[in-house]
């Protein structure tokens, strides 16, 4: 414990900073364990769920169970994994997973947990447990809507079966840590935070933190096999450089299906010993555990700053936020003006690399969860639309405004929205047809399913002419050079004359679009004037 933390100034490490030290290893005193760290501006605590980028197209999801720094200042975390349905598809049987369902890895065998570099973390993931296990604090409906993923079953890597009865321990960690966090941790009401504070010593940022006593790592990891999750070659190779020096080769057990088993069973001696050591230290004492209320895990974060501002006449009814959130899609807030506030987790959209928007749209279209929202104010931003949908439907969505371009009417803004599921998208469309979502400036929203246009194959462009004979010679040499294909026309050419004809057509079209849009704006205003509510613009 007397180890001095020799911390070099952290420059090139994405703002990495360890939090509170938990202790050093028993035998190997070069290893220091921690309870939290900050990386790329995000604070990670033990038992947070996290996305890992291990070179696969889909990020892996795992729960941090240990974080430590070795003698060479390599920062590592031990992770218990969640399986995506695709990873265990051979064992699903007739189990039909929901699209955002994942499975906690359990049992003894490879693939339950392993050690990873801190650098492979891309961001926090909001995982909610929907198990009816009495040890699991039940998630509210709102929690579920905010969740990125949920699980209610675990996948035993030895039995190769999906089970819904949770064992007491998963990979040596109490199962309670995998369930939802206890409700009292929710910083919904600031006043009761203080009561949780047991001790405040030498901890930075304590003004906004609360302490929670957590019995940490009760049992050691007895499982020899737990150190490597052999999910893919890429993954393994990424870890390999770090553990190379202490790698131990054991016969492969082939417990996992398909190509995954082809990876040599590399064992990390280093980490194994550290498990034993940590046990000695940690078993005895209860460990103080800080929890920053601002960076607490995502499943509880979004609500604390959200308020709904209602008209005076009704404000009394809704000061209880829980009440508000629990309502069935806001049926009781009809006719009340609701202010859309920014969500506190708005930065999440930038967390890590996702599929490009175009591909996400295609997937959503296939899944039936893509809709368009029309009649928005064209000045809304994508983030504002996401907020609007959250407040109106209590659905977390991805939205993107469609850019105004040559032919779009300035009176209408349109956004593409990706819902989490087809059901949510259908429900939103249904609600918007049955009732009416009216923006304060007199815009009733219109939603419908959209079919994306496939990008056109590179056909000839209307208005670009070629002379067949000349074309063949030219294309080989000049056409490849971009510059020769772009130029301002000079007035002594036939090209200039024809170009001018196009200019005239373009001018004309500008005029007819303008006329159309002006007329439309007038028509809208006329109907809007019939509204009894007062419009803000």
């Amino acid at each position, binding site marked *: 414990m007397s180890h001095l933390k020799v911390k070099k100034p952290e420059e090139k490490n994405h703002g990495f900073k360890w939090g509170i030290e938990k202790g050093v290893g028993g035998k190997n005193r070069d290893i220091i364990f921690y309870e939290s760290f900050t990386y790329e501006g995000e604070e990670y605590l033990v038992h947070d769920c996290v996305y890992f980028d291990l070179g696969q197209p889909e990020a892996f999801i795992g729960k941090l169970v240990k974080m430590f720094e070795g003698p060479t200042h390599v920062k590592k975390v031990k992770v218990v994994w969640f399986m995506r349905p695709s990873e265990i598809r051979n064992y699903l049987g007739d189990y039909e997973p929901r699209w955002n369902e994942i499975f906690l890895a359990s049992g003894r065998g490879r693939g339950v947990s392993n050690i990873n570099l801190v650098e492979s973390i891309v961001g926090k993931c909001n995982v909610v447990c929907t198990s009816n296990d009495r040890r699991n604090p039940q998630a509210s409906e709102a929690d579920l809507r905010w969740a990125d993923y949920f699980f209610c079953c675990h996948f035993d890597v030895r039995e190769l079966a999906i089970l819904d009865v949770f064992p007491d321990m998963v990979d040596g960690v109490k199962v309670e840590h995998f369930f939802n966090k206890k409700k009292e941790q929710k910083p919904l009401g600031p006043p009761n935070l203080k009561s949780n504070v047991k001790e405040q010593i030498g901890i930075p940022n304590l003004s906004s933190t609360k302490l929670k006593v957590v019995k940490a790592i009760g049992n050691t990891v007895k499982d020899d096999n737990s150190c490597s999750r052999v999910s893919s070659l890429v993954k393994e190779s990424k870890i390999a450089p770090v553990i190379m020096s202490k790698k131990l080769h054991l016969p492969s057990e082939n417990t996992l299906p398909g190509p995954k088993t082809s990876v040599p069973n590399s064992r990390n001696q280093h980490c194994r010993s550290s498990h034993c050591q940590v046990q000695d230290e940690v078993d005895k004492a209860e460990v103080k555990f800080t929890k920053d209320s601002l960076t607490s895990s995502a499943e509880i974060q979004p609500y604390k700053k959200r308020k709904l501002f209602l008209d005076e006449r009704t404000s009394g009814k809704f000061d209880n936020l829980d009440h508000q959130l629990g309502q069935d899609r806001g049926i009781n*807030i*009809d*006719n009340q*003006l*609701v202010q*859309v506030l920014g969500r506190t987790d708005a930065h999440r959209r930038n967390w890590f690399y996702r599929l490009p928007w175009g591909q996400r749209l295609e997937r959503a279209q296939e899944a039936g969860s893509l809709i*368009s929202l*029309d*009649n928005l104010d064209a*000045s*809304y*931003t*994508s983030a504002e639309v996401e907020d609007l949908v959250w407040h109106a439907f209590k659905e977390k969505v991805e939205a*993107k405004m*469609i850019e*105004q*371009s040559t*032919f779009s009417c*300035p009176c*209408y*803004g349109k956004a593409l929205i990706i819902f989490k599921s087809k059901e949510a998208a259908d429900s939103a469309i249904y609600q918007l047809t049955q*009732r*009416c*979502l*009216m923006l*304060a400036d007199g*815009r*009733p929203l219109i939603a419908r399913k*959209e079919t*994306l*246009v496939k*990008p*056109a194959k*590179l*056909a000839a*462009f*209307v*208005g670009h002419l070629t002379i067949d004979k000349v074309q063949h010679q030219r294309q080989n040499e000049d056409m490849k050079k*971009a510059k020769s*294909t*772009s130029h*301002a*026309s*000079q007035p002594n050419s*036939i*090209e200039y*004359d*024809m170009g001018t004809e*196009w*200019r005239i*057509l373009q001018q004309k*079209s500008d005029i007819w*679009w303008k006329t159309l849009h002006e007329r*439309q704006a007038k028509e*809208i205003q006329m109907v*809007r004037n*019939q*509204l*009894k*509510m007062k419009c803000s613009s």
Partner: protein
Amino acid sequence: MGATGMDEYAAFKEKVRRTVYMDNLSPHVTESVIRTALDQYGTVKSVHFIPNYLGPQNIPQCALVEMEKEKQAEVVISTLSQFPFMMSGMPRPVRARAAEVEMFADRPRQPGKQIHFRWLDPADPDFEVASKLKRLAKKHATETAVMLRHQLDKEEKLAKQQGEALKANYKKYEMIDGLMADGTARRLARHYNLRVSDDAGPSTFQ
């Protein structure tokens, strides 16, 4: 939304002023074509093609071209409106105009902006008007589609007409070339006592 929001928005506004919106672009136009075409007027910082997710397939591309300086964007816009500017083909010129805030899908929030909404149920006195507004919006969308169709038709017609004119022109030049080559022109010249050798310019006809 504190000072950072303000700064972010100010920086974004600045970027909008430096950006040129280009349309009537052929699908063959790529980022490198735009960069090479415009680097004579200034440094192109970024090119973003506005994706066409919902429109008809055959509408021209449009793009946001961010220049390094506001001045350069102005030069591009004024040059391209003075001369028909050809990119990856002729004679349909591309167009450039100043970009607007709404053309950017990923724009920061405008500080201080507030959004309010309310749910109206069918019993609400405004529900009928709201439905009317919805119908109007749908009608307007149809109008826009029809107008677009009309525009594309016009463009096709002009292209066809120009194609024929060009073909006729080309034929004419080919014929003249042919007549020069096979000596017909010379024979005729002799017949009419005219000089057609190369040193003679238009002055011969004076």
